[in-house]
């Protein structure tokens, strides 16, 4: 336990020293909020059922944070640790290998939560976006979403040979999910056909789940089911395929 704590604290420090990861998780979402907030404002809009542009897009930015840490940061870090022989060095100590994974998961959750917190507070105070209607459910949805996307990330780290390929495949998955899943523009603005396509992307369901809970509309059971299935499948594949070298 002491080791896990030490490892986690170490990984948090390393994450914050790596400007790219910290930028995309903590700063970039705020940039998007301020850019699109300055363009569209947050006036009630009949197009969004009486809500404002930022009310609708903020959950999309949250999905983006979950996607960037789970689908990019964590798998790239793990791949890099394997490729460079860092995991190999850990393996010749009595360290339980699960502590390495555990630390990654905790760091991922901590950074994601921090990014979401910053974004939510900024959206609330700058654009008057309401705080989530159901905070406890909102936190549960955040945990389910993070674990689920992270398990997809672990699949990438398990199947792909190098950090470089993990990064490329991670981006190839992440960016379409970002733009079609509501992180770039509200999903309501997509043509019906693309809305159909986006329903096959995991991040869309993160967005649907969080939007629904934010607006007090309750759980979207379909999205919960999609994320749970992805979590189970992702964990099964990565538990079988993950290599330490």
């Amino acid at each position: 336990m002491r080791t896990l704590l030490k490892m986690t604290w170490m990984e948090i420090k390393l994450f914050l020293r790596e400007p790219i990861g910290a930028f995309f998780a903590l700063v970039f979402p705020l940039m998007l909020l301020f850019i699109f907030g300055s363009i569209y404002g947050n006036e009630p809009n009949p197009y969004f059922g009486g809500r404002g542009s930022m009310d609708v897009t903020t959950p999309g930015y949250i999905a983006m944070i979950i996607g960037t840490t789970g689908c990019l940061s964590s798998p790239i870090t793990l791949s890099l640790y394997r490729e460079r022989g860092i995991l190999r060095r850990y393996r010749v100590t009595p360290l339980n290998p699960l502590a390495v994974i555990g630390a990654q998961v905790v760091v991922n959750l901590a950074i994601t939560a921090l990014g979401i917190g910053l974004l939510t507070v900024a959206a609330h105070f700058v654009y008057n976006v309401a705080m989530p209607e159901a905070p406890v459910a909102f936190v549960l949805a955040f945990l389910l979403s993070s674990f689920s996307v992270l398990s997809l990330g672990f699949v990438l780290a398990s199947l792909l040979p190098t950090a470089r390929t993990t990064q490329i495949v991670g981006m190839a998955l992440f960016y379409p999910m970002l733009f079609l899943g509501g992180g770039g523009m509200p999903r309501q603005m997509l043509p019906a056909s693309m809305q159909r396509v986006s329903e096959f992307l995991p991040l869309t369901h993160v967005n649907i789940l969080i939007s629904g809970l934010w607006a007090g509309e309750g759980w979207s059971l379909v999205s919960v089911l999609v994320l749970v299935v992805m979590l189970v499948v992702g964990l099964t594949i990565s538990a079988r395929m993950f290599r330490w070298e």
Partner: protein
Amino acid sequence: MQPVIEINNLTKTYGDTCAVDDVSLAVYPGEIFGIVGPNGAGKTTTVELAIGLRKPDAGSIRVLGLDPQQDAFALGERIGVQLQQAALPDRMRVWEALDLFASFYRRSVAWQPLLDQWGLGDKRKATFASLSGGQQQRLFIALALVNDPELVVLDELTTGLDPHARRNTWNLVRAIRDQGKTVVLVTHFMDEAEKLCDRVAIFDQGRVVALDAPGQLIKSLNQGSRVRFTAPSGLDMSWLQEAPGVSRVDLEKGDVVVHGNGALMAQVAAALAQRQLMPPDLRSEQANLEDVFLAVTGRQMEENHAYAA
């Protein structure tokens, strides 16, 4: 005496290549044991099998009385390893690495003296990426010692170090042994093995081709001595063959190499002086581990490098 490492009939195959081929050896407490040979001879694979990083195809391994596969955690507590290919996260600081690794073990030593001892005292706050190759190497040795291990495994310890740093490192390795620890040293530098190791196993193509104290191996060659000097241009030196005590004269890369017995140096010097020849670099050479390798394999170490590449 109970061996620290006992390997019997160990075999490991990758595809068609037999990386380790029926290797048996024993390492005893308190010695510096060298595993030497050209690149690709199976040295690292043997060591990785011994510390449980790889699974053997056949044969048995006991390290400190434990099975490296089944008792991996218990063994991890008691050994320290410096791997040939390893790294730390770029932005991890030296002190953080030692602090982190110390937390992996039930028992660990104070790491500040280790840093001072390995010349990293003023690099405490430096990040891993900012260290030079030699400093990273020394950090890995310090990490290998942080749990006060009974057995220390050092793989290609001095590769990439300058001659001065190499000699310093050798002294520190002797100091590790003098603390009562057992050291296994993997190296492709024959001179390093000869100077540092109490006993060596010479590996070639996955097999142990010789195993003894370096001095014994050299003595068993019965090679007599050699005298070497730069060949004077345009002069035939074959007449030296007739000098007393000389058995053979070779021309090697522009050097004349005289083989023989007895007071060879004096005899050769006298014969040369008689003809008014006084080569300034006239020197006596002793047989070394490279000669042992040549004798047991029929090949030079350098040839074997090209073969391995």
